[in-house]
């Protein structure tokens, strides 16, 4: 996952109307959209709510100037595992339907149910919508801006400090990870090479990880000492200056709240 860090951040540094929006309004809009699709009950109305939210997402992604290939690439990293579990649903009964009608017999005793296919599609819709808005948020907002935005929204200062340091050092360790990967490759070591004894591969990876742990810890010690030299103490906090929202941020916030809330309300309230 850490290999994708640089890829994600590179796109977050681009310029577009969506990239220029304040991080706070993007966080609120993305989380509202996710909550909206989760709130909609497991029923076919999810499709309608999902279409509305995905159209909203598509407009924003288009405005961001990011290629659809970036979206497909990032989605492809997440989808396989949970996509398999979603696909598996077509063979299973679930508590969201009173009865199940087999439409295809795979093997004796294993059926594909019409209602289960519908449930799998409902799960897939919810999954795609919720992940899409996270991809939009992280592809159009720099990590530091996300953190500052969260701080301005009331994230406790201790957490801001810790997450800020973690995010900063993710890149350091990302480079370190790359270097270690290159070193292992230079020595022709491949953990997936079946010609090597398994115990040997386990020990090599174990030592690599142990070294990584010690290097992380020692980096933490050096960082702490460096921070002490710069006046860090018990009552130090990250200072984040106040920043009023611009008119375009307010406008986006209004739309970003209205569409998901309306979609959730219209499609999930009993009629």
């Amino acid at each position, binding site marked *: 996952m850490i290999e994708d860090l640089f890829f*994600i951040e590179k796109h977050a540094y681009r310029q577009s109307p969506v990239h220029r929006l304040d991080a706070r309004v993007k966080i609120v809009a993305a989380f509202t959209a996710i909550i909206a699709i989760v709130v909609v009950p497991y029923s076919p109305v999810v499709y309608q709510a999902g279409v509305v939210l995905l159209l909203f997402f598509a407009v924003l992604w288009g405005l961001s100037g990011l290629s659809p290939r970036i979206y497909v690439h990032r989605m492809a990293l997440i989808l396989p595992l949970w996509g398999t579990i979603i696909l598996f649903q077509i063979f299973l009964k679930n508590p969201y339907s009173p009865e199940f009608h087999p439409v295809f017999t795979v093997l004796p005793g294993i059926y594909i149910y019409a209602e289960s296919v519908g449930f799998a599609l409902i799960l897939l819709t919810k999954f795609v919508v919720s992940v899409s808005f996270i991809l939009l948020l992280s592809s159009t907002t720099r990590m530091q801006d996300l953190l500052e935005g969260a701080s301005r929204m009331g994230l406790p200062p201790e957490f801001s400090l810790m997450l800020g340091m973690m995010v900063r050092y993710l890149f350091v360790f990302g480079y370190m990870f790359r270097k270690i990967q290159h070193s292992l490759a230079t020595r022709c070591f491949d953990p997936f090479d079946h010609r090597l004894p398994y115990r040997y591969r386990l020990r090599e990876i174990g030592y690599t990880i142990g070294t990584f742990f010690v290097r992380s810890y020692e980096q*933490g010690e050096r960082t702490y000492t460096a921070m002490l030299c710069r006046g860090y103490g018990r009552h130090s906090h990250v200072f984040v200056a106040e920043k009023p929202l611009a008119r375009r941020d307010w406008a986006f916030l209004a739309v970003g709240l209205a569409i998901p809330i309306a979609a959730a309300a219209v499609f999930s309230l009993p009629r």
Partner: protein
Amino acid sequence: MHIPDAFMPIPQGIFYWVVALVFISLSLRWVRQEMDETKVPLVAVLAAGIFAIQAFNLPVTMGTSGHLVGGALAAIVLGSPYAAVFILSLVLIVQGVIFGDGGITTMGANILNMGVIGGFVGFYSYKGLMAATRNLNLSAFAAAWFACLVPALVTAVEMWIAGTFPLDLGLAGMGLYHAAIGVIEGGITVVALHLIASVRPDIVNVTKGVTV
């Protein structure tokens, strides 16, 4: 093991968030009291390291691969289950918000499973086995294995409660898969512990915790 947003109704997500927040606040208190508040940066940087460590993969079986979660390792080296809660909370927040791995409404459940249950199971099974056997390899291996398996089983139960996966298949599937992956977790934890203890014996205190 990262439950995405689609797989859990919102009331259950809120419930797990509340429980997770209790443990996150307790872990913050542990950091302030046990590690000295000013040394928080050290653990934050270590969390970034654990995040990177999770990228090292090893094959398990039948084309599957596994990696270290790191909760048991962090809890054993730092001498407290709250170390795992604290570090894995940071890791899961970054994974959920930046990478889309896990969800926002389900993040509480994920922190509860991997951070809280994984950390507590890993730490206390290690302590219990060490007291009973005095065998570091066995204790660390079993602790890391349990810390991988038990959260997976709890995840299966949570998804059954959510109505998105049957209990029997979930327990069997998640149980078998993570029992296999747990071997990787256990093996790597033992090797890494030996290396850390030989290179930096001052930071590993298997009975009292870290001496920073």
